[in-house]
């Protein structure tokens, strides 16, 4: 970990958290794979953020339309969905094969909701044959997805903080000051200095 780049530290930590989320999701359901997609609001796309299972590392960073396909439907409608016999869906099979080289036969997808925002989608792929997803499974994954959503929300906040601090202008300076202040170990001297600055600025405004 680098003490010079707290944004990078939090990014790495939250990536590790998300990787743990998909690993545990896969383990709970004895599934072949699990994925977390993040909704990128700027490009209006879903992005693979963490993958456990086949081709796990080549998938991270892949992008998909945000309101089409099964993950897009789940993101937009906030509804969990279980789909079997996916290989029989020609459009899904083609897109999955082109994107990942792996076509799952079954998946359960639940939205990742933090407060009122939909941050992304958690998918679990291919349980062992003959063990379809039940309502209990779906409820369990929904609860687990809440935990993933908190992880995802933290990651987004860390990225925003990092982007703000790396930029120019007053906002970036304030963000950097905030980071330095958190790490300052000077018995409150820095804080008193900033409070004095605040009083001067208040008099000027």
């Amino acid at each position, binding site marked *: 970990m680098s003490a010079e780049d707290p944004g990078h530290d939090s990014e790495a930590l939250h990536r590790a958290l998300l990787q743990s989320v998909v690993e545990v999701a896969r383990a709970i359901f004895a599934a072949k794979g699990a994925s977390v997609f993040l909704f990128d*609001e700027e490009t209006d796309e879903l992005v693979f953020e963490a993958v456990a299972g086949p081709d796990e590392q080549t998938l991270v960073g892949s992008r998909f339309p945000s309101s089409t396909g099964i993950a897009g*439907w789940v993101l937009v409608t906030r509804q*969990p*969905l279980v789909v079997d016999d996916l290989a029989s*869906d020609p459009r899904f099979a083609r897109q999955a094969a082109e994107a990942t080289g792996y076509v799952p036969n079954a998946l359960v997808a639940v939205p990742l909701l933090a407060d*009122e925002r939909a941050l992304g989608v958690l998918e679990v792929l291919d349980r062992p044959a003959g063990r379809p997803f039940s309502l209990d499974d779906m409820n369990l994954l929904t609860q687990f997805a809440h935990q993933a959503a908190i992880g995802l929300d933290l990651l987004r906040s860390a990225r925003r903080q990092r982007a703000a601090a790396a930029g120019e202008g007053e906002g970036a300076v304030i963000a950097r000051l905030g980071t330095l202040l958190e790490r300052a170990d000077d018995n409150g001297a820095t804080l008193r200095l900033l409070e004095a600055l605040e009083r001067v600025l208040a008099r000027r405004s």
Partner: protein
Amino acid sequence: MSERLLPAWSLPASAVETIGLASSWPDRVTRDWALGGATGEGVDVCVLDSGVEPSHPLVGELASAVAVVFDESGETRAVPDETGDVCGHGTACAGIVRSLAPACRIHSVRVLGSGATGTGELILAGLRHAIEAGHRVVNLSLSTTKRRFAELLHDLADDAYFRRTVLVASAHNMPVESYPWRFSSVVSVGSHEQDDPLAWYVNPEPPVEFFARGVDLDVAWIGGGTMRCTGNSFAAPHIAAIAALVLSKHPELTPFQLKSVLSLTATNTREAE
């Protein structure tokens, strides 16, 4: 509906004779009275979803298909849908409705496919379109968590309720509040695990009001085929179709009365008899 001018805001003594029910209700409301022999004929059912695949063998011909999109000025508009289904889910819902209410008219309003950003506006506009078109039943296997849409959606749901449009919405157990299924003016539906499409249960402990088939069912899907699916989003169209059956036999029913009929004829109500 009757052509008579009915009292709207108050009931003068002289008007009491004018508000009798359009048809008489039996002493005991049975399924046979409610939907025996019904096919959904004459009832317009709207599937507000990801679109519906045209001429899918399990759906048949659509009465209409529109897509709600943003125009160049950023306003929402309903335009003829040339795309069909962008997911498969809307086709699945339409197939469920067709299987139970074969003679109803199915209308598709597609609100997906233009990106996730702005979908709240598209859902609102799509629902407004469906209500203004006068469809008797609207299936909403979707929800929003955005609070700024909740109030508008609530007003629309009430508007539908008073205009005799029954909104059937899928409920879910999420850690975040979502709408419109929580509104009392809609019929909210969760899943049971049985495989009988005509088994439905009334919930003595709302907010979820009814449970219908939603687990491990073969549904229509894009590409002309089927898919095996599970979710409350498939339970809602079962109740939407059953509502269409009841309304095809009793078109005078208000959403309040229809909900009463669904409750009185639910599987657990009948078992208690």
